[in-house]
């Protein structure tokens, strides 16, 4: 009998008992027990009226709020991505003025709270510039002339506030992605005669995408929830509508639970979109 067959028969005969991790099993049981107790206490205290919760879950106004939130958050992400890409390219450029302008933008828009930025675009900006006037250059023809308060709606104010603040984060995310592509890739692309723009478009950004996409997905989720900030300037998003309803009928718990449910749905959508994009930039 050869050595290997001895080992094989031994393995078949011998019973192997893996290490028992008693501590973690005991802790799991304790946590589950606590959750069950909490659930029963909640049911006994009637903390949530299920019928009210279900009734408002598909309420027309609530659905409009959820749709508005998703729309605002998605547009803000696209704006943030555009601004982020341009400022990231400015930051990594050799030009000292472009590079410092980009740093200042990131410092400023990442440093000031998003809520203040939303209030700024909606309330302060129209006071600073009361009228929007656009004329044909070198002529007296006036193309647009209207009060700024008409131009900056609650939607536009929220979009500017969210999009530009998020653009600063996105700028850093894209810059990190670009810097993660090693210099040898760039040298090789230059060596076959690509221009700087071609190197960026064909070689660097496709490889940076693998790093940018998961982080951008994270920011998307965060943005969708930040749309609730737009409630302060009266944009009809989920939180604003929820508050409007419970201030009349006082079903605070049920309505906040409804809002939370739809935010979770939005997050699920964002996560699915993120995974779809991640597949476009696989690990090679």
């Amino acid at each position: 009998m050869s050595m290997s067959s001895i080992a094989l028969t031994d393995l078949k005969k011998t019973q192997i008992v893996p290490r028992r991790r008693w501590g973690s099993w005991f802790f799991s049981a304790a946590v589950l027990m606590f959750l069950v107790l909490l659930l029963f206490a909640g049911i006994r205290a009637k903390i949530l009226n299920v019928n009210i919760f279900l009734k408002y879950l598909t309420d027309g106004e609530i659905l409009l709020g959820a749709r508005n939130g998703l729309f605002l958050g998605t547009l803000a992400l696209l704006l943030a991505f555009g601004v982020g890409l341009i400022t990231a390219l400015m930051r990594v450029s050799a030009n000292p003025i472009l590079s410092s302008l980009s740093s200042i933008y990131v410092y400023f828009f990442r440093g000031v709270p998003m809520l203040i930025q939303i209030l700024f675009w909606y309330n302060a900006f129209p006071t600073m510039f009361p009228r929007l006037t656009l004329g044909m250059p070198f002529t007296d023809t006036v193309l647009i002339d209207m009060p700024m308060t008409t131009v900056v709606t609650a939607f536009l104010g929220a979009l500017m506030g969210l999009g530009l603040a998020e653009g600063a984060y996105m700028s850093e995310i894209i810059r990190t992605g670009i810097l993660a592509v090693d210099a040898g890739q760039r040298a090789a692309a230059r060596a076959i005669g690509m221009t700087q723009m071609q190197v960026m478009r064909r070689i660097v950004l496709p490889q940076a995408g693998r790093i940018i996409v998961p982080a951008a997905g994270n920011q998307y989720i965060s943005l969708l929830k930040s749309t609730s900030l737009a409630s302060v300037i009266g944009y009809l998003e989920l939180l604003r509508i929820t508050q409007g309803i419970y201030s009349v009928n006082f079903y605070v718990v049920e309505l906040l639970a409804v809002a939370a449910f739809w935010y979770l749905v939005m997050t699920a959508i964002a996560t699915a979109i993120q995974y779809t994009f991640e597949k476009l930039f696989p690990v090679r």
Partner: protein
Amino acid sequence: MQPDSNMPIVLTNVSKSFGNLQVLKNVSFEVATGEVVALIGPSGAGKSTLLRCINHLEVISGGRVYVNGKLMGYSERNGVLYELSDKEASVQRRSTGMVFQSFNLFKHLTAIENIMSGPLYVLKRPKSEAKQSALKLLDKVGLREKARSYPSELSGGQQQRVAIARALAMDPKVLLLDEPTSALDPELSGEVIVTIRTLSEQGQTMLIATHEMAIAKEVVGRVIFMVEGEIIEDVPAKTFFSAPEHERSRQFIASHASV
């Protein structure tokens, strides 16, 4: 002065500094069409920098570099050198191919896509045409069955052969190879050396920075020996190995004899 365009590479008094450190000191030499030249010398001699100066990946501090009779990276008017735009320099760079020590294949592209990238994006050739010539080049380096493999699925030697094919896809007048076998074990460098030898037999002009004595002794016709940014010897390969003129050359050959 416009040098002979039959000399694909002409360097006159090229110098290069990084801050206070002078890496190249008045380097001058020529490489003729079909010639295969080894650039050898200890680490830090400036071999890689020299190659990168030839295709203007590095900006030189003094002197002139001509490729195919054209001044690289600059246009000269009334004795003043004006640096070319990114686009113009990129067009000039097409006439040189480069092969790197660490291969630098584009990680997100397959082997064939790597080879097609130059013809497709730089020369704007139609895709079918780029693909046909890429397949021919894969045959040439013996890797046709790896066309659809990504760089991470290839061995080092295979990656370097694809990298050589990628450089050849631009049909360069000169191939600059920067330590093409230094990252490979002896067996894998063997297959790369075979590829380089085939190219030399087909008359491809090459300038090879190398530590590989097998290349320096068997493939090349001429050796340029550099130490600390200066050319110490520029002689036929046979002369360099059988009767080196300088003490420093003898030391270098002795220290590499066992390799």
